[in-house]
C-alpha cells in the first residue's frame, strides 16, 4: 500500500520510472510493454493536440486555451485504471483526461471554439463539463460519488484540480464531506507549481498538498506526476480503495506546466528559462521513450508512424469541429434556465434588434 508507506509529512514521494527511463523493479505496476506503448501514444496525442490548439488560438480559430504540455503523464496514467461507469469532474486543464475517459477530441475542440455543444457529453460518457471557477467542482464530484455509493453502482468519481484550487473553501468542504460520508471519490491534485503566476510556496504554508488529507481523516499520497508508472500505481490503489467502500483519497501529483497558463499568459514574467529547461529534461514523454527504447519497444520508425497518425487524428478532430455550424447568438440566452427569466428574454430581444439594425446597415 503506497498510502501507508509514503508519509507526506516526511516529504516522501512515490517514484517508479526515473527521468532517465529506469524502472524500480520492486514497485513495477502490472503494465506490460504494449500497455505502456498505448499510454505513450495517448500522451503523444495530447502533446500534439496541445500544440495544435495553441496554434489554432493564434489563428483566431480557438478561444483562450489552457495548455497541458508537461502534465500528460498525470492525465494518461490517472485515467488508465478507470472504468466507464466512473466519473471525471475536472477543471480547464484536463483536456487529456476528459479525452481518455471518452470525450471525443472533436467535442473538446468545439468547447475551446466557444460552442456550448462541446460540453454536451455523449451518452454513457461519465464526464462533467469543464469547470472554470477554480475549486468549484470537487463538490460536484463528491455528490456524484455519494450518489454512486447510495445506489451501490460501484462507481468512483475522480476530480482534478490544481495546487491553487486547494486554497478554495469549497475544496475544504468537499474533502470534509467526502471523508465523513466515505464517498468513493479520488481527489487528484495536479501540483504544476503555479496558479497562473503564484508559485505554490506562496499558495500554502503546508510543505506538501498531500498532507492536507490529514485534516479530513483519509490518506494523502505524493507522487511524481511525470512518472506514468507511479501515477498509475497510486491511482489504481486509490480507485480500488474507493470502489470497495474504503472511502476517499487525495493524490498530489507533483508536475510542471511547461507551457503558459493559458494562451493569454506570458510565463516569462514570473519564471526563468533555467527552471523551464530543468523541467524539460524531466519531460514525461521522454522518460517513457527512454524506457521503451531500452527494452527494444521503441524505434524512430515507430515514432514517425505515431507522429503521423496522431497528427492526423488531431487535425481531423479540429476540422470536424470547425465544420459544425456556429451557434446562433441567441444561444447565449438558452440553457441557463428551463424557462428563461424575463430579464433574459428582454436582453435577447434587444440583441436581435441590434443585429437586425447591423444587417440593414
Amino acid at each position, binding site marked *: 500500500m503506497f498510502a501507508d508507506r509514503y508519509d507526506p*509529512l516526511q516529504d516522501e514521494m512515490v517514484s517508479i520510472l526515473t527521468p532517465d527511463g529506469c524502472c524500480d523493479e520492486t514497485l513495477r505496476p502490472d503494465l506490460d510493454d504494449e500497455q505502456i506503448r498505448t499510454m505513450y501514444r495517448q500522451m503523444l496525442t495530447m502533446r500534439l493536440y496541445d500544440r495544435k490548439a495553441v496554434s489554432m488560438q493564434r489563428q483566431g480559430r480557438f478561444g483562450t486555451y489552457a495548455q497541458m504540455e508537461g502534465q500528460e503523464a498525470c492525465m494518461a496514467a490517472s485515467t488508465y485504471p478507470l472504468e466507464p461507469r466512473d466519473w471525471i469532474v475536472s477543471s480547464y486543464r484536463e483536456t487529456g483526461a476528459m479525452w481518455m475517459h471518452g470525450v471525443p477530441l472533436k467535442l473538446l475542440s468545439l468547447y475551446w471554439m466557444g460552442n456550448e455543444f462541446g460540453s454536451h457529453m455523449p451518452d454513457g460518457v461519465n464526464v462533467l463539463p469543464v469547470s472554470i471557477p477554480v475549486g468549484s467542482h470537487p463538490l460536484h464530484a463528491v455528490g456524484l460519488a455519494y450518489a454512486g455509493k447510495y445506489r451501490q453502482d460501484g462507481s468512483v468519481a475522480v476530480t482534478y484540480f490544481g495546487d491553487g484550487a486547494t*486554497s*478554495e*473553501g*469549497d*475544496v*475544504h*468542504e468537499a474533502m*470534509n464531506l467526502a*471523508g*465523513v460520508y466515505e464517498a468513493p471519490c479520488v481527489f487528484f491534485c495536479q501540483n504544476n507549481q503555479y496558479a497562473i503566476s503564484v508559485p505554490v510556496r*506562496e*499558495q*500554502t*504554508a*503546508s*510543505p506538501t498538498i498531500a*498532507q*492536507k488529507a*490529514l*485534516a*479530513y*481523516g*483519509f490518506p494523502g499520497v505524493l507522487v511524481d506526476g511525470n512518472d506514468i508508472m507511479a501515477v498509475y500505481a497510486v491511482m489504481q490503489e486509490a480507485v480500488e480503495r474507493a470502489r470497495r467502500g474504503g472511502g476517499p483519497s487525495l493524490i498530489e501529483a507533483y508536475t510542471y506546466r511547461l507551457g503558459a497558463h493559458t494562451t493569454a499568459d506570458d510565463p516569462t514574467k514570473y519564471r526563468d528559462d533555467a527552471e523551464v529547461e530543468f523541467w524539460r529534461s524531466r519531460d514525461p514523454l521522454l522518460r517513457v521513450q527512454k524506457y521503451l527504447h531500452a527494452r527494444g519497444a521503441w524505434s524512430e520508425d515507430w515514432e514517425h508512424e505515431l507522429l503521423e497518425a496522431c497528427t492526423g487524428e488531431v487535425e481531423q478532430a479540429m476540422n470536424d469541429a470547425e465544420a459544425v455550424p456556429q451557434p446562433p447568438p441567441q444561444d447565449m440566452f438558452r440553457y441557463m434556465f428551463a424557462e428563461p427569466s424575463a430579464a433574459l428574454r428582454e436582453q435577447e430581444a434587444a440583441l436581435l434588434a441590434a443585429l437586425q439594425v447591423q444587417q440593414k446597415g
Partner: protein
Amino acid sequence: MPVEAPSAEKLLDMYARMWRIRLFEEQAEYQSSQGKVMGALHTYIGEEGVAVPACAHLQDTDYITSTHRGHGHCIAKGADISRMMAELFGRSTGYCKGKGGSMHIADFQVGMLGANGIVAGGFGIATGAGLAAQLRGSGQVAVCFFGDGAANRGPFHENINIGAVWKLPVVYVCENNQFAQWTPQKDVTLVTDIANMSPAYGIPGVQVDGMDPLAVYEAAGEAIARARRGEGPTLLECKTYRFHGHNFGDPQQYRTREEIAEWSDNRDPIKQLAAHMRDAGILSDEQDADIQNTVQEEITAAVRFAESSPYPTPDELYKDVYSYDIG
C-alpha cells in the same frame, strides 16, 4: 518560551470575569423567559474557561472576533455589560442602539470586532485585522474564536491558509464543544481533533482541556506570544462543553442529562479555577462571596440600565446601515 504563571491579581480578575459571564448569561436566560430579550440567545455557560484565560493575554489594542455565542468573548475582552444587556433588550443605549441584538455586539474601544450570526464569519475579519497589524508593524495580535461546526466551512480553510502563508499575528481558537447546534461533531467530520488539521496549513496545532482555565492560559499565552513575535498563527483547540442548550429553549434531545451532568458537575471551569486558587491560598470563602456579590450587583445594575432605557424610535430604522444616511 514558557508562559509565566498568572499572578494572584490576574487570577482574581479572571475569576471575576468568569463569574461575570456566568451570571450575565443566567440573567439573560431569565430575562428571555420573561419575554424581555429580543431574538435568539446562545449562552456561553460552561465555556468561560476558554475566552477568559485567552483574553487575559491581550490588551485593549489587540483584537478578537467572536461567534453567535459571543457574550463570553465580549465580557472577557472587557465590554460593558450594561450596554450588552441593553442591546439584548433592544434599547437605544445598547451597543448597536438596540437594532442588532445578541449576535452583533461589537466594541472597537476594547478590540472586540464583533459577534457574528454567520457561522465562520469571524475568520476573514480576524485575518484581516492580523494583516493590518502586520502592515502597521504595531505588534497587535488578533484572536479568532470559533466553534467546531465552523471548522467545516470554507472560510476556516481559506483564512488559516493565507494567515499561515503570510505569517500573520492571528491565533485561531476553536471552542470544540462537540456539537454544532444539534449535530454531534462525528456526523459532520471524520477528524474529531481540530488541532490535528494544522498540518494542512503548516502551522502548529495545540490541543488543550478547555475546562481547565490554567491550561488554556498557558497554551493561549504561548500561541499569542508566538504571534506577537511574528512567527505566525497557531491553531488552538480547546475541548469544552456548553452546559445549556444551543440556544435558549433548545429541548436538547440529542444528548443525555447524564452527559450534561458529567461535565457541569465535575468539570465546571469556574469551580476548577476556584479550587486552584483556594489551594494556592489566593481565594478565601469571604473573597469568593464578595466577588460573586459584586458581580451580581453589576448584573442587577445592567438590567436596571437596560429596562430604564428607551427603545429606538422608528426614524432610527434606516440609520447606521451604511456609513452615509439612507433615511
